[in-house]
């Protein structure tokens, strides 16, 4: 299976603390993406990191990628109650025809306590 795995499965922190989620995958990738899913909603793209990049920032998000270990981490700094959601990593591999296929990790359920 090309599916990735994330840990922890669930994370509960106090508002203002930082949250770190990890993702491991199995195949070669073009890029790795992180998505957020609020309860009962669709997924929303957060950030993308290319296979030749090691770190990327976007607002309170910081993503790292280690292709030698096939792993990535998502750091959310100064968490807010509104950050409560499930977070998924997704690896992007290129298939014939150009229809990049996303393989999702198992997700981390983040709860930020006000």
């Amino acid at each position: 299976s090309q599916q990735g795995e994330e840990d922890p499965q669930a994370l509960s922190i106090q508002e203002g603390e930082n949250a770190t989620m990890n993702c491991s995958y199995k195949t070669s990738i073009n890029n790795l993406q992180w998505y957020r899913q609020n309860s009962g909603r669709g997924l929303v793209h957060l950030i993308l990191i290319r296979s030749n990049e090691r770190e990327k920032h976007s607002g309170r998000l910081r993503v790292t990628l280690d292709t030698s270990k096939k792993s990535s981490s998502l750091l959310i700094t100064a968490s807010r109650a509104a950050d409560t959601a499930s977070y998924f990593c997704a690896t992007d591999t290129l298939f014939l025809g150009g229809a990049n296929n996303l393989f999702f990790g198992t997700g981390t359920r983040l709860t930020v306590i006000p």
Partner: protein
Amino acid sequence: DTAVSQTPKYLVTQMGNDKSIKCEQNLGHDTMYWYKQDSKKFLKIMFSYNNKELIINETVPNRFSPKSPDKAHLNLHINSLELGDSAVYFCASRNAGGRHEQFFGPGTRLTVL
């Protein structure tokens, strides 16, 4: 204003029935996808369509068939529904020539009784 929309939002039906879920995107994207999310939140790709051609067909039962009348629509038809088909189904779209992010619809919760 909705970028990717799905109908219906909820679908409750009996085993053995045939049902369809519709998906439309107004983003001008040329690639669309269907995903299945099970009760453990495990999200798996089912199909992708690029320029009205099926590019990837993962190992899903042939009871599932995607139909794309045009570039903006990718509908999912399911025949002879089974209990194990109960899940949330998400449609997504992407511009193959542009950014790699996918835009997801709100999901359709299918319950098979």
